[in-house]
């Protein structure tokens, strides 16, 4: 509820709706008598001190009548909405329950009704059902129903495609039960939101019907009726019409605003917020002199999000030219955020802090903004899991590559395009000139990933960061991309950070391996030691649980019980402790990452 009061629209909507509800409850109690009191002395007066909105043809006070009419207006709108929504949900749900023929009939009817103008539908129904409040309510209900039916149908179809519905069907669960147990509960939220907005619309529509004389009939009165009565006098005594008009407008606006804000809040609530806050323990240690040879030197990198969410905790990493370092760890260990922090891409409201963040000999945080952008633009090449994320689907491949050269290197368009074709050829895309003139979607997944790598090669990259670049690809294509990355690193002398959850891929490609767990580096070792020289229990378990082409099939595979703590609940001590066989009382204290052998560091109390 709190987010409702955070935006002006939210505050206004909530206030207006609250006001309308109070008015509907209290209005007739307070002003009921006043609204009905006939006074032949003050017939058809304009605004005055005694009657701020004037009086009607029987001398009744119009302000009091407006305040009293709120109840009927809101009640009728609510009934109309409920009728429309109920009919709509039933119509929308039927096709999922009925046999195919019936389903098609219902769908067809709904489609026809949706295309039919709502107001006509309402008036048509109202005329058939008889003049008066009942007819108007039924009419508006009928006008609301098709929209609701369509929404229900669309939402239900999206849920019906979910695997759990397929599973339920395979289990032999009846269609009706699938609808009531799986589909409806999972689409209830958007439907309820829609209800708020429709309520505003129903209110306006009912006022419209009454105004046209099709709705509420005397002696009852709602806002629309009051407007109808006052409209003839609008030139002589405008206040008598403006009062009811303002009430209608305010109520309509209130419900629409509230509905909007609720809908937006709901769509934002996708990620649950963790309450428990884990303390980020900074790694103590002298920073020392910067490493002059390193292309990338990161010290004590920490990424935090509001609410104590700290996905990266004091990470340090150094990469030399020509070196490929693999960053491995399970999902959520902070690999991608580490890459994002290095590239300056951590999304708002994430915060990055580091003792040192040097790239190509300069600390990126000390550079002026334009130089920093230039450095990242020309020296850093990033490759992601989904190449489509890096390519603009609307632009031709060659043009996108050429843009890098025209923007950062001041090349002419023809030169840039020629270089783009050359680079595409370099990453072994067949017929590069033709491919350069195609859009990304015309290329296969592997070819797109090559194009992204070629884009990185337009400049002279000193650092390549590849985040799961082959995870979406088939093994045969994966192998070619890995080979390409290795060649590119060799010939450009760039430093490469290769991120993957697949330890076998890391083992095949990289020189050095950095293992992450719950935001921290737990082990750093030369690739040759990965298979049998790992010292951290987590690394060892990862290696043991990986089946390969030589694994003994008669023995069970190793596996690690439990799960990695989420970034908001990482404990103060060793984060792996509750999954670790070797854990002891000592492990309640955070083990530092310390040298173990040459080129090998471990953070574990048991590593000797």
């Amino acid at each position, binding site marked *: 509820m709190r987010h409702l009061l955070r935006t002006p629209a939210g505050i206004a909507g909530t206030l207006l709706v609250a006001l309308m509800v109070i008015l509907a409850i209290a209005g007739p109690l307070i002003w009921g008598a006043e609204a009905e009191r006939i006074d032949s002395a003050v017939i058809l007066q304009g605004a005055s001190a005694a009657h701020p909105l004037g009086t009607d043809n029987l001398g009744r006070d119009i302000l009091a009548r407006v305040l009293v009419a709120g109840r009927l207006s809101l009640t009728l709108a609510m009934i109309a909405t409920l009728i429309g929504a109920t009919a709509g949900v039933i119509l929308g749900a039927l096709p999922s329950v009925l046999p195919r023929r019936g389903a098609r009939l219902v769908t067809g009817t709904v489609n026809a009704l949706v295309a039919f103008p709502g107001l006509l539908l309402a008036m048509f129904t109202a005329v058939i059902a008889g003049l008066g409040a009942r007819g108007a309510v039924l009419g508006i209900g009928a006008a609301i129903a098709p929209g609701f039916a369509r929404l229900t149908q669309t939402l239900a179809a999206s849920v019906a495609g*979910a*695997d*759990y519905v*397929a*599973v*339920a069907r*395979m*289990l*032999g*669960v009846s269609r009706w039960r699938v609808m009531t*147990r*799986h589909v409806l*509960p*999972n689409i209830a939220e958007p439907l309820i939101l829609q209800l708020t907005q429709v309520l505003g619309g129903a209110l306006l529509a009912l006022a419209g019907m009454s105004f046209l004389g099709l709705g509420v009939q005397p002696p009852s009165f709602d806002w629309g009726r009051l407007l109808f009565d006052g409209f003839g006098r609008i030139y002589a005594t405008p206040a008598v019409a403006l009062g009811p008009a303002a009430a209608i407008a305010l109520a309509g606006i209130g419900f629409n605003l509230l509905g909007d804000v609720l809908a937006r809040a709901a769509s934002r609530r996708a990620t649950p917020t963790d309450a428990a806050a884990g303390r980020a323990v900074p790694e103590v240690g002298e920073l020392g002199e910067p490493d002059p040879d390193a292309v990338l030197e990161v010290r004590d990198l920490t990424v935090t999000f509001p609410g104590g969410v700290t996905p990266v905790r004091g990470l340090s990493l150094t990469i030399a030219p020509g070196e490929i370092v693999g960053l491995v760890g*399970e*999902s959520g260990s902070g690999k991608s955020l580490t890459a994002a922090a290095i590239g300056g891409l951590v999304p708002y409201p994430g915060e990055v802090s580091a003792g040192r963040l040097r790239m190509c000999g300069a600390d990126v945080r000390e550079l002026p903004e334009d130089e920093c952008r230039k450095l990242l633009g020309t020296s850093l090449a990033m490759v992601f899991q989904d190449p489509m994320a890096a390519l603009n689907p609307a632009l031709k491949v060659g043009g996108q590559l050429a843009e890098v050269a025209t923007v950062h290197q001041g090349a002419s368009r023809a030169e840039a395009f020629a270089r783009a074709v050359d680079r595409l050829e370099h990453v072994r895309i067949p017929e590069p000139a033709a491919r350069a003139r195609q859009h990304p979607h015309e290329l296969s997944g592997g070819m797109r990933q090559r194009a992204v790598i070629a884009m990185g090669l337009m400049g002279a990259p000193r650092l390549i960061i590849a985040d799961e670049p082959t995870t979406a690809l*088939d*093994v*045969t*294509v*994966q*192998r070619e991309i*890995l080979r390409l990355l290795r060649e590119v690193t060799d010939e450009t002398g760039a430093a490469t950070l290769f991120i993957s*959850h*697949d*330890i*076998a*891929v890391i*083992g*095949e490609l990289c020189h050095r391996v950095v293992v992450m767990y719950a935001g921290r580096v737990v082990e750093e070792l030369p690739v*040759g030691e*990965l*298979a*049998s020289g790992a010292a951290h229990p987590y690394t060892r*378990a*990862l*290696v043991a*649980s*990986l*089946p*390969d*082409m*030589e*694994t003994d*099939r008669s023995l*069970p*595979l*190793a*596996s*690690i*019980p*439990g*799960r990695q703590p989420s970034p908001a609940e990482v404990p103060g001590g060793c984060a792996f402790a509750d999954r670790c066989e070797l854990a002891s009382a000592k492990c309640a204290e955070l083990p530092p990452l310390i040298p173990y052998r040459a080129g090998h560091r471990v953070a574990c109390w048991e590593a000797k």
Partner: protein
Amino acid sequence: MIIKNLTVRFGAFTAVDDVTLEIPDGAIVGLVGESGSGKSTLARAVSGLVPYTGVVEGVDPSRVQMVFQDPLTSLDPRMTIGASVAEGLRLPRAARQAEVERLLTLVSLPVALAERYPRELSGGQRQRVAIARALGVRPALLIADEITSALDVSVQGAVLNLIRSLREEIGLSMLFISHNLAVVRYVSDVVAVMHRGRLVEAGPTEEVVKAPSDAYTRSLLDAVPRLARS
């Protein structure tokens, strides 16, 4: 059971092209191939989720169960684990509780998990719940479609061990689909390879892995990333 000359067409596109494959009783048949090769379409056809031509003999279609890649999307987020597992059981209410407990125990999960919701479980646990649910209807054939692809290696092992123990303990026949050849090799008795909708090779696991007869199988085997173990 045996799949004979099964073909699935989507318009002009032939997703599964004349596939004949035997799944011996109590055996695990592994199906490998690249994305788009028709593995999942074959599985959906055998489960009766897509129309096909050809015949599936020796199994009642209502006794085929399928487990999907992403356990989070295959469990209704609003139902407790216990309710999800109980859903397919055709048992009187009184007997359900005991059966749910038996199924959870069968997949090595603590019985107390029945009260929890899918989001409160780890990926590996969720996948075991999905398997327990499928086992509840005593399937004649279980189809596992990339069931470990969304899992971390650290929990994948437990799910693979479960698959193998189910074959040993209850003699379950299974079609195990994966793009990961090492995983398929570990669990399967027979390996079948699909390429562009056709079955290019099928045979006992060690034979296919050690002496592949098809060129495409060889290129798949060559591409498997290997950790140099000394």
